[in-house]
């Protein structure tokens, strides 16, 4: 039966499957393309509604509003700072704790591991965590993005299993040369762990860049709001009064909210789109390292 379906060596199945995969690619890319063309569409055209295939007249006016908006640019800065600091702190802290934990002769190791494991299985949840942050003075404080995200059990386990693949002789020879534990970690172990550092940095950076919810929960002052939290307010709560005022002053009433929305969405996504080609080769490896232990 399989033979009958074959046409010039290509089976019906292959054709359908290829078409299906092309459809998947289309459906996946189209949302991004949609934002892109609508952010480019000229304001007068955007008043008539969104475009689906091509901008009717190309203009960068919406981007001009976004880049001139000091609130949004401040949000962009907060998000960038948060992503850079948050990622470095998370990776460094987790890597150091994991190094100590990876030593089997460490006194108290079993107890430490149990304490750590429980943090993955149980948590206090939203309300108790909120109360804790308030009591610690992290409410409406930039550090609320950094400190609570310093460590995860999962990432620590990934570090530990990676350290185990580094030959012991490397560490021993450094020890013979008189290096301390910190010396071994920073001069020998970490430089040999670039694959796992890249992977975990990537996931941490994506979390920090994309998260809007921490900002909704803990941030009140305008100048500490991350870009994604602003976007949440603009899109879901439709509160874009400050931008519309700005737009009015610059372009009269002709710039509709939609164009600005799409342009700010574009600005919030561009950094990820720009680094994606470089990061995507780490993804499969990263998930695999995670999956072995998870």
């Amino acid at each position, binding site marked *: 039966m*399989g033979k009958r379906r074959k046409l010039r060596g290509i089976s019906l199945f*292959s054709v359908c*499957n290829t078409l*299906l*995969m092309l459809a*998947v*690619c289309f*459906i*996946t*890319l189209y*949302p991004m393309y949609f*934002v892109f063309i609508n952010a480019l569409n000229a304001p007068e055209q955007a008043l008539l*509604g969104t475009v*689906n295939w091509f901008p009717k007249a190309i203009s960068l006016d919406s981007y001009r509003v976004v880049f001139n908006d000091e609130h949004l640019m401040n949000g962009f800065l907060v998000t960038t700072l948060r992503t850079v600091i948050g990622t470095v702190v998370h990776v460094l*802290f987790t890597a*150091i*704790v994991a*190094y*100590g*934990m990876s*030593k089997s002769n*460490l*006194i*108290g190791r079993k107890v*430490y591991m149990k304490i*750590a494991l429980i*943090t993955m299985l149980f*948590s*206090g*949840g*939203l*309300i*108790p*965590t909120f*109360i*804790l942050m*308030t009591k610690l003075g992290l409410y409406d404080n930039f550090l609320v993005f950094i400190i609570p995200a310093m*460590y995860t059990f999962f990432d*620590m386990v990934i570090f530990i299993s990676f350290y185990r693949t580094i030959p012991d002789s490397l560490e021993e020879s450094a020890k013979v040369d008189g290096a301390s*534990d*910190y010396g071994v970690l920073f001069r020998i172990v970490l430089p040999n762990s670039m694959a796992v550092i890249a992977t975990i940095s990537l996931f941490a950076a994506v979390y920090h*860049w*994309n*998260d*809007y*919810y921490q900002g*909704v*929960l803990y941030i009140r002052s305008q100048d500490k709001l991350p870009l*994604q939290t602003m*976007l*949440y307010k603009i*899109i*879901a709560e439709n509160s874009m009064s400050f931008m519309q005022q700005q737009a009015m002053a610059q372009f009269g009433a002709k710039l509709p909210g939609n164009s600005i*929305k799409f342009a700010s*969405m574009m600005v919030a*996504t561009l950094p990820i789109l720009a680094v994606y080609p470089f990061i995507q080769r780490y*993804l*499969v490896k990263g*998930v695999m390292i995670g*999956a072995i232990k998870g």
Partner: protein
Amino acid sequence: MFQQKTEQIKTFMRQWQLQSMVIPGIVWMFIFCYIPMFWLIIAFMDYNIAKSMLESPFVGMKHFQDFVMDDRFWRSIRNTLGMSSIRLVLGFPIPILFALLLNEIRSIRFKRTVQTISYLPHFIAWTIFGGIMLNWLGEGGVINQLMMALGIQQREILFNSDPKYFWWIAFFSDTLKETGWSAIIYIAAISGIDPGLYEAAELDGANRWQRMWYITIQCIRPTIAILFILAVSGLLGSNFEQIFMLKNNMNMKMAESIDLYIYNMGLVSGRYSFSTAVLFARSIVALGLLFLANFTSKKLNGEGIF
């Protein structure tokens, strides 16, 4: 015994560098994980955030009785279970299917391209992706235009403001965003299968479907089992960032999941103890579900996560 203890203390002192790496981690865990767990006690109190815990009176199971009497609580349970069931029954097989079909693509280059593209939406924030969905589903949006062009409907439907569509919006937007990403682990598992098995099966006359069923599926069964256990234990959870983004006052009736209910009751209405009681009860049931799923999977498959 005593000597052993002093020996341990000596070793501990000699390891001070290693210990100084680990102990800050343990301290961090105590503060950010254990203190919130301890704070769950406020579920049994009338806690006031302006006062200390010692000043708050114990009220026993009062809050637990209150939320059981609340219609909105049961509505949030229904919504959560409804959305989770759709996700489990229809959503769980989709990444597996995608991985299987992708595996049948012969051209390595095309396969890689499809794979790379399919991960992309996972890296887009929910604010952006949710924003696109809200636009598409609204008046004059892509979905309405498409359905009218295809003659499926005559007039525009405001999907966002009609509660009856919410579960499906949540399901489809999540599928659109995460299918490629969820498939990675299956793709990796499939790539680890010994090609010799396929050759042997081909010699025995197995066709494409038989090879898929008897070799690929059987070989990735452990992976499927583990992910299924995790999915079942997450029945009472929801994708909070997604729902928070897509909800609005009009669709709240079908959008309010348990997570959102806890948020609304606790942080919006300021009923901290009441919300914590709901949270507490949910954690216990979720833990039970995890054990149940693990037990069932062990019985049926011989695979479990513990």
